[in-house]
């Protein structure tokens, strides 16, 4: 009988694994993505129900209470969160997953010691690894959350001998791990190692600047998966190992895509403290470069240019999202389409604060996804574009990335709006972008600046275009 139950659980895990793979596969296409998410959720439900049948699982009231509390908090959070806050939400959820994995490793170790059982050699090693990865994921994610939520400053926090301290702590962790593996009964050492892993998570993320957060969130997403896998090694549970590995792999791939989008290596993100030396240029309409002048334009003239163009490419940046201008932008696009203008959106891979964030923000404003174009797709089309309209984006359209070897963003792939016949930039003032770099695009002959808040200006454009 017991054997039958165990086999049943294992078969259910196999089915759940297949559902996870299918779900993620369906998540890869806009038409089937929602179904994919539901399939993955069904796989999760199956795995949870199957687990309740393990014979060592007895305390159902405690388990169901935990699931009840967690479900309520999770559901409320999921319905309340604003789409602009999605990076924080995912960051926080990553951390909770990492926290759960750490607690599993700690709890299992404690259970074995309480029962007077000596953990096996394998178990000691996997427990230590699990605590390291899970602990870093937990506190690293919480710091990333605090930075994105602006509870703490988004700029890099650095201090003297920071790297040295990190290496010292890591070395201490490795040395302590060896001792613990040799003598697992040393409980203070065990707790000390847990403390070090939590401290390492904080120290690794605080020196990373706001501009690099998309990379950090992707990386921590990967970590949360690997942490779950590590917990699976502790418990020798295949379901945990496979599902965790799946998430670990997807996070690594997204991290690579993000790094490529910014032309940064992972090591330079983690150890670089990007932007710490960058000083923002002063606001105001005056250029700091004496001889360079910008041409400004008013909404009426801008509306004429847009309305009588054949093709317009809109380049939205995070500034647009912060100003909550996406609905107004959609309306502008609708009005232009009505006049027979071909409108497209060009999305840079790192637009927004996490991979694909801008796409979600535009989807929320009812922009149909076939109108959204990737960088590689849209860049060859700029020479044939009449007007490129840049709204709240800066570094991702800076031609210095292509031409100026001394620029900190040199080599970063950009949206080549300077190759369009005309470029209009909606911007509050002349301040530099996230990376703290001056943008020569603003001083080019073909570029016109429309100064003002994104929302106000786009609303004015809508009103003007309506009268055409």
């Amino acid at each position, binding site marked *: 009988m017991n054997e039958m139950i165990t086999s049943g659980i294992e078969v259910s895990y196999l089915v759940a694994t297949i559902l996870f793979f299918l779900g993620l596969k369906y998540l890869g296409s806009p038409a089937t993505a929602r179904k994919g*998410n539901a399939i993955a959720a069904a796989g999760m439900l199956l795995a949870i129900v199957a687990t309740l049948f393990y014979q060592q699982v007895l305390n159902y009231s405690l388990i169901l209470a935990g699931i009840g509390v967690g479900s309520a908090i999770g559901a409320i959070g999921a319905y309340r969160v604003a789409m602009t806050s999605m990076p924080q939400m995912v960051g926080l959820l990553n951390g909770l997953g990492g926290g759960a994995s750490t607690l599993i490793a700690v709890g299992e170790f404690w259970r074995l010691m309480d029962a007077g059982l000596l953990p096996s050699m394998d178990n000691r090693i996997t427990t230590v690894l699990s605590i390291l990865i899970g602990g870093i994921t937990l506190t690293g994610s919480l710091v990333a959350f605090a930075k994105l939520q602006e509870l703490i400053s988004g700029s890099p926090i650095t201090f003297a001998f920071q790297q040295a301290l990190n290496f010292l702590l890591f070395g201490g962790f490795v040395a302590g791990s060896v001792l613990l593996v040799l003598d697992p009964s040393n409980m203070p050492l065990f707790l000390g190692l847990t403390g070090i892993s939590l401290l390492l998570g904080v120290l690794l993320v605080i020196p990373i600047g706001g501009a690099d957060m998309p990379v950090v969130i992707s990386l921590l997403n990967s970590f949360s998966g690997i942490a779950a896998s590590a917990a699976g090694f502790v418990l020798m549970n295949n379901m*945990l190992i496979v599902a965790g590995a799946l998430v670990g792999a997807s996070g690594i791939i997204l991290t690579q895509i993000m790094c490529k989008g910014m032309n940064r290596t992972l090591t330079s993100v983690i150890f670089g403290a990007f932007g710490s030396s960058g000083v923002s240029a002063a606001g105001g309409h005056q250029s700091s470069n004496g001889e360079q002048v910008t041409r400004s334009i008013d909404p009426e003239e801008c509306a004429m240019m847009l309305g009588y163009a054949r093709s317009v490419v809109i380049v939205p940046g995070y500034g647009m999202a912060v100003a909550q201008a996406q609905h107004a932008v959609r309306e502008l696009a609708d009005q232009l389409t009505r006049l027979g203008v071909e409108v497209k959106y060009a999305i840079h891979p790192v637009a927004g604060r996490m991979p694909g964030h801008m796409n979600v923000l535009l989807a929320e404003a009812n922009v149909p996804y076939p109108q959204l174009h990737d960088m590689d797709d849209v860049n060859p089309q700029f020479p044939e574009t009449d007007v490129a309209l840049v709204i709240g984006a800066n570094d991702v359209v800076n031609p210095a990335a292509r031409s100026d070897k001394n620029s900190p963003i040199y080599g970063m792939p950009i949206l080549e709006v300077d190759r369009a016949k005309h470029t209009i930039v909606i911007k509050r003032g002349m301040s530099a972008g996230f990376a703290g770099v001056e943008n020569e695009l603003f001083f080019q002959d073909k570029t016109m600046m429309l100064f003002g808040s994104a929302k106000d200006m786009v609303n004015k454009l809508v009103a003007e275009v309506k009268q055409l």
Partner: protein
Amino acid sequence: MSAAIITAVFIFTLATLAGAEVINKVPPTLHTPLMSGANAVSGIALIGAILVAGGRDLSTASILGFIAIVLATINVVGGFLVTDRMLQMFKKKAV
């Protein structure tokens, strides 16, 4: 290293490779929902938490397990629901 752990490493490696293959071709439009969906899947830690919390008597281990259940459930439920909320906004035509 026991045979069991080698089998586990084997499974982990294959799952990683297969996962990378499945995710590799996802268009940028779906990167955020993909990440939050994958994030919900990493809440699979919940089943580990259930195993740790499930002991008959209340102990330090079961209390740690209980906290892990709460955290992992928030991860699972919040992750899947917020992903669904995002995906229902993706439309092919304007409405």
